[in-house]
């Protein structure tokens, strides 16, 4: 027989490992439960980056520097350093279900905002802003259908058109966001 090891030497590290696993969705779960729902307009899908693996890589209007420059009343882009988070102030649309509109950009989290506005935290990186919403995992069985739909949309797009693809997300009090559903035309995909 082996020299017996106390069971605690299994259960203690196992408990820590379970906590490690549970910590991954912990923040997302909290944001789902307490956050505000926001709809974001996606930017045109890059035709040279087809759907890879089992996730859709998304980009948004608010992901691009040049779109943010048009916001006007904001600090100069020069003040925005890669690595420091920024906050995009989004305003609710007049009609529910339409995408939220970026109205301002701030370097610090705002203390208070009107009821129809919220702050979305982004991370400037290499010429774009990342919000943690760039990846939406899609089940293997559904990829082909979504691929086909995206391809049809892309063919029908004009050079300056916005694709009828939106992301529904929940934004927490600290500006972090988690994706909830992908809205394609009038269909809502939740995975």
């Amino acid at each position, binding site marked *: 027989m082996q020299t017996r*090891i106390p069971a605690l030497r299994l259960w203690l590290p196992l408990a820590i490992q379970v906590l490690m696993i549970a910590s991954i969705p912990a923040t997302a779960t909290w944001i789902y439960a307490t956050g505000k729902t926001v709809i974001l307009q996606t930017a045109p899908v890059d035709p040279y980056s087809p759907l890879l693996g089992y996730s859709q890589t998304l980009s948004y209007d608010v992901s691009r520097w040049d779109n943010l420059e048009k916001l006007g009343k904001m600090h100069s882009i020069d003040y925005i350093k890669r690595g420091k988070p920024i906050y995009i102030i989004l305003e609710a649309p007049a009609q529910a279900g339409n995408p939220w509109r970026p109205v301002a950009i701030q370097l610090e989290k705002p203390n208070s905002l009107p009821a129809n506005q919220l702050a979305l935290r982004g991370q400037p990186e290499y010429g774009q802003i990342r919000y943690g919403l760039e990846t939406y995992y899609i089940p293997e069985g559904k990829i082909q259908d979504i691929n086909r739909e995206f391809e049809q949309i892309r063919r029908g797009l004009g050079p300056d058109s916005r694709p009828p693809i939106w992301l529904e997300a929940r934004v927490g009090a600290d500006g972090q966001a988690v994706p909830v559903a992908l809205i394609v035309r009038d269909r809502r995909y939740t995975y």
Partner: protein
Amino acid sequence: MATDKFRRQLQKEARLWQNEGLISSECYDQLADRYQFANLETVARNRFAIVLILIGSLLMGLGVITFVAANWQDWGRNIRVVLLLLVFVTLNVSGFYVWQRSAQQSWQSMLGRGLLLAGSLSLGANMALMAQMFHISGAEYKLYLTWGFGVLLMAYSLRLPLLGICAIALTGIGYWTGLGAVDMDTQDWLWHLLIQCMPIVASIAYLPLAYWGRSPLLFGCSVLAIISTVFNNFGLTPPASSQSFPDALRNVIALIVMPAWLWSYRHSWSDIRFITLCRKLSILLLIILGFFLSFFDPWLSSYTPEVSWFHWLNLSFFTTWAGYNCYKQIQADRSDLTNSTVLAILGVMALVMVWHGAIVPIPVVATFIFNALLFILGAGLAREGLLGSSRLQFWSGLLLLGLQIFSRTFEYDTALILKSLIFILCGLGIITAGIWFEKYIRCPNPPIQPNQP
């Protein structure tokens, strides 16, 4: 302890001898008892079972990971989370109890360890699947580093070398993929710190486990992990001339600290197998360094790399450790010729490189000295092989000498006739040395003839 192959052969021969009447049945029984013939089949079965169980465990772990890619979407998210955690906990708990309640080295013990390994692999699968189910994106290297940490925790708690090796592999993947991805300016400064200080982290994290687990394999993996991260962090370059004294010294220490650290490696818990492994690695690194600097071109370099404070931190850590161990080693045994020779070679290498870098460029003299040192290393290896009747060491020494001769022949513009002569002489030398060596190890000391009446 006799090998299984020898025991199996002996059993077969002993049966023949008994049948032919060369040995009695009592003699056979004594042999059977001494060499445990009865266990041979069990050992073979166990070994086969061990291999199957290991393969099965790895496949199980990979199966769980592949399960992530299959996107298990038909059930609700909550049910998926619960089921995954259940599988993860079951693998670990069943593995632990099967391992603990079986005899050491039995197939059940291996099964238990295999299940624990599968449980460790499923930790990563769980983490990745959680991120996927909640649409959380992140850098892959963070997953591997966190996964490696989790497995290391379990390895320490259970003192299981198998899990320690798994942790080293996972952390290694995280380290090498994270090198290019991590950046000091972003929120990832903590990960950047971890990666840049990995040599120190690896030493603290892996070596104690190797000792407690009494595992030479884990120790070897730990040392290789440390060496690879050190060399990556130090950014080794040939000694450049016309440097400032601190730069030259830093560069030289970066080149020789690992061979010195390995050669002098010792601890109050030292296992002789660990020390032997370290010394072999040290000689190998010295040979590589000596071979590389036996060429003339590296001595013409004038490149001094930029170094970060992480480099200084890692360098200071290992220099202090190596320096202390070298000092204790010299104090412990001044008469050990091999030890003195290696430390002297390290000292001469350092002195020549510092002189060339900070005082006066001496490319020609330095090349000559390094060739002499390389010759001493090769001859020393061959000598150790002769003394210990070790073919590997003897032939390694001769191979090194031959490599040195060939390198110089092709490095410099020599006539074809000279090249031809060198090849012939080397060939003759190898044949002569080989025959002489084989004769020597068969009869190292001629028998003393008694005086005839």
